[in-house]
């Protein structure tokens, strides 16, 4: 009798255990999903690898394209491609966000007219190499910076943070 009960108890515990485990397996991504956007805003987000070797960087900003897996937008669930302007200052790797601080267009390095500057084609916004906005052009603040880490020789980029160079 007691043998029977204990086996049943054992079984039900096991099942609950399995169920509990399965539930947590299902819940975890959901919780992560719910919390993630908050984390991204505080800059504590994951570092994403880029194909850029740190050793190949110079003092001239170059465009680095990289992919963030599984982002969602209105139409598609897809990997999101992202861009950064990356250069070296001494030994320090600097990565700037290409998103114009005026209304969000993508800025280029060196337009036809202004050399050694970032240029926004939308309303002729201008920034110095360190991202500092040039007065008299529409942007009212400097370009954001990315968190940067060099891992095994490759540049990894994290979330954006307010510009620390200006």
């Amino acid at each position, binding site marked *: 009798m007691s043998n029977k009960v204990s086996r049943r108890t054992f079984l039900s515990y096991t099942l609950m255990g399995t169920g509990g485990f399965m539930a947590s397996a299902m819940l975890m991504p959901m919780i992560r999903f719910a919390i993630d956007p908050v984390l991204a805003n505080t800059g504590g987000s994951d570092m994403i690898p880029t194909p850029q070797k740190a050793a190949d960087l110079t003092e001239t900003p170059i465009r680095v*394209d990289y*992919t963030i897996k599984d982002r969602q*937008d*209105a*139409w*598609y669930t897809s*990997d999101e*491609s992202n861009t950064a302007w990356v250069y070296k200052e001494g030994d320090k790797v600097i990565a700037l966000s290409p998103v*114009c601080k*005026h*209304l*969000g*267009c*993508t800025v280029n390095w060196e337009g036809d007219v202004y050399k050694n500057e970032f240029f*926004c*084609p*939308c*309303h002729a916004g201008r920034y110095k190499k360190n991202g500092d906005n040039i007065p008299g052009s*529409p942007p009212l603040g400097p370009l954001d910076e990315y968190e940067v880490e060099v891992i095994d020789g490759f540049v990894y980029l994290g979330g954006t943070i307010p510009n620390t160079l200006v």
Partner: protein
Amino acid sequence: MNWVPKDVDTYINQKDYIDTIVVPLLSIDTRPETMKNSASSSEFLMNLSMFIEKQFKGRMMFMPPVSYTQSTDLQQLADTLSEDLKKSSFAHTFYLTTDAKWTSVTVEGKVVWLPSIPLETMDDHLRQTIMEDQLRQVLTHFMEKWNVQ
């Protein structure tokens, strides 16, 4: 800007800067033998639209695509669109399409037609290169209009 409330709020405050509306014209062919091609062009057009939007977010408002099936009367659709877009307050109107039939339709604003490129077999890197290439082509049309002011 995208046709979402947050971006529309920005637009309302920044009308002077966001002076261009882009309408993707999306042809849908329902016949089984041409469905795949139609889907492929649709993917291309939507990808390109998103790509251009990202580059020129601060100047262009992108409408959700205006989609039509194969026997739609395009001239009639063009007339309706021209009429309705007059009620918006954008200085420049562009239509973006891979459907060559639009090149013989009269419409207010500029039709930018470009042939569709099948992206489905390409990896991310190649897609990116193709998009940049296409953007450069399209850009000349935008610049032409923007520089006239």
